[in-house]
Structure formats: C-alpha cells, structure tokens
C-alpha cells in the first residue's frame, strides 16, 4: 500500500468525514422518530430537579491555575521530546543526548517542586 504522505492524511480526513456523517445520520434519524412538544416547564434548566435560582453561569473559584501554567510550559516542551526520542540513541549521539534528557527532567522536577513549595496542591 503506497499512499504517500498527503495521501495517508487524505485517508484520515475521509474517516473524519465518515464520523461527521455518522453523527449527522444519528441525529437525523432521531429527528424523524421523536416527538417535539416543548412546554416552558420542560425548557427550564433541570439542574437538580428544583427550579433554578439565579444565572446558570455562576461564578466559581478556579483552583490549580498555577499547575495550568506549568502544564502549558511542559506540554510545549514535551512536544519537542517526540522528534528527539526517535534519534537520541542513534550512533554518534549517545551520552550527549542522555545528559540533555536529564537537564529536561531536572526542569520538570524543579517546576513540580515549585508548585509544591507554593502549596498549590493543598486545599485552602
């Protein structure tokens, strides 16, 4: 099987289109089969069964945002880990790349240590 580079991604795209068609088909079949008799009571937000009080988009405290920063930084770093992973043991690299890896691991460990020292994980 030789699809070529773009060809194989065209196959991925085709599968995505099939996925959209499956969802659309299911919803269309549902539309044909179901009754539609809306009433104001039905259209009220369900929440926990009692009539909702106030706005649906209530304010809430977002916790762990420091770890979100850490995640964004490390996830970007981790992206570069993949091309590196395929060549790091190639002849001529060996020790150099291994040392580089420990520098990378050290940075992540430092980040976690920082979050821990900042007491981000304790429920305040």
């Amino acid at each position, binding site marked *: 099987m030789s699809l070529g580079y773009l060809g194989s991604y065209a196959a991925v795209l085709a599968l995505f289109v099939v996925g959209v068609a499956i969802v659309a088909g299911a919803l269309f079949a*549902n539309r044909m089969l179901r009754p539609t008799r809306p009433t104001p009571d039905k259209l009220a937000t369900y929440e926990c069964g009692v009539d909702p009080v106030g706005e649906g988009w209530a304010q809430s405290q977002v916790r762990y945002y420091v770890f979100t920063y850490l995640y964004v930084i490390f996830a970007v770093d981790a992206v570069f880990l993949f091309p590196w992973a395929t060549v790091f043991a190639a002849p001529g690299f060996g020790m150099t790349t291994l040392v580089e890896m420990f520098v990378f691991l050290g940075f992540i460990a430092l980040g976690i240590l920082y979050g821990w020292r900042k007491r981000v994980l304790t429920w305040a």
Partner: protein
Amino acid sequence: MAVVLDVAVRLAVIVAAFLVLPLIAGQAEHKVMAHMQARLGPMRAGGFHGWAQLIADGVKFAQKEEVVPAAADRRVFALAPAVALIPYLVVLVVVPVGPGLVGVDLDAGLFFVLAVMGIGVLGSIMAGWASGNKYSVLGGIRSAAQLVSYELPLVLAASSVAMAAGTLSLPGIVEAWRWWWLPWQAIGAVVFFTAGLAELRRPPFDMPIAESEIIMGPMTEYTGMRFALFMLAEYAGIIVLSALTTVLFLGGWHGPLLPGPVWTLLKVAALVFVVIWVRVSYPRLREDQLQRLAWVGLVPLALVQLALTGIVRVLAG
C-alpha cells in the same frame, strides 16, 4: 484505483469496529458490574442475563424527545456530543491490529494519537459551559482541570515508548517490541493506563460527573440521541485507551500460537475488563486527591520511566 479500494475497505472495517466494539464494552460493563455488585436491574430485560437491555436502551434513545433548555447556548450545546465522539473514531485509523493490518501507517502516529485524543475532552468542557447550569459548569471546569493534570504524564509515558522503539509509527513500535519491554516499560504502562482512565473521566476519576454532588456534570441537560452519543463516546474512549495500551506497552499482535489480530483483540478485551473492574472496586477520588495523584504520583513516576528508558537504551546500545 486499487489503492483507493484498499483504503476504503480498511476504513470500512474501522468504522464497523467503532460502531460495534463500544457496544460490546458497554454490554460487558452492564453484566460484569451486575455480577460483581449483585445488581439486579441489568439482568432482567429479555430474560436470559438481560440480553435485551442494549436493544431497549437503543430504542429508547432513538425515539426520545430532545429537550434543549431555553437558557442553553444552543449551537455549542448541539455541537458538543460530536466533538466528544468523532476524535475517538479518527484515532482508530492508526491503531494496528496485526502485521500490515492498520488503517494508515502515519510516521507521526503516536503524536497524532495524543493530539487527537485530547480533543475529545473539549466536548465535555463545551457541554458543561453551554448547558447554562451551575453544576454543569462546575463539571466542565473539573474536566478541564483533569485534562491539564493528566495530559502530561500521558505524554511522557508515551514518549518513553517512542524512545525505546526509536520510531513514532504505531506499527513500527509493535514491530520493535520484545518481551523484556514488559518489565522495562512497566512503570510507563501503569502511568499511561491510569492517566488515560483519568482523561476518559472513568471512575475512580469521575469527579467531573460525580452524580451524588453535581448530578451528571456536563451531561445533566442532555436527553435522547445527544446523550446517547456522549455514552458512545465514553465507551469508544475505553476501547481506544485499551487498544493504545495494548499497542504501546503489551506488544500488540505478539503472542504464541494464536494469530496476531486475535492476540490484539484478547489484550484489548482484558484491558476493558480491567477498566470495568477498577470502576467497581475503587471509590471516587476527591478533587484535591485527584490533582495530587497526578502531580505528586504520576508525573514523577513518568520521569523515572523516561530516565530508565534513556539509560538502558544508550548503555545497552
């Protein structure tokens, strides 16, 4: 033309597997949970072992009235189930079941898988926000927090396998796999599977849909077919996670006596059983325990696995 036909057949098989395997997993969950926890409900419909339950559920979902709350953000609300479901179908295209038996062999396969899998969680964040329901918003935020925490150990554990195999192509990884990778990559396997469970929001990591405190989280306002699509997405996610763990850590089609694809399916089935078993056995983790497990437990373990993989690979040549 022959190439196009070949790909069309492969995609057709993938779509069939995508539509059938999650249903089998869902049915298995009904029955296994019923046996493990002595639940009577799932064993009734149709007589023998409640075989008709799946059909009854399907009929109900297909003809149930759809209610979109007046307070909801209609467009996003309608789109969310599709965003949750379709990524799991697309991921299956690179998962090999036997030598040469794969949708397409992308050379960045592993990277593709991780990138596309992350999109699924967006569906539940969208649903949570668009529902216009306080509990759903909370559930959506919890989903987001969970994605952020567990994506890193997942990616690190997966890259450990890429280091060991020296390739990102999934068939290539299975090709390179040897039995001694089992002990060598054991930590990574546990981290990957656990983090994957958390990404799927499966118990014991189901804080985002914790029904005893926030009803059904992001799915509270959904009814009928859209709710069914969310359920399908959950079970498709279980299949995808089990298949990926099989391919990356358990050697995919490698195994004695039986043909390769049978081994792949057996390993996937065993992992699906473990997913159900874990649900039955463990209580739900509290939100702070959940975060702590990711950052203090899984990320350091994944780093240890990376160091171990690097040292063994370089020193052993």
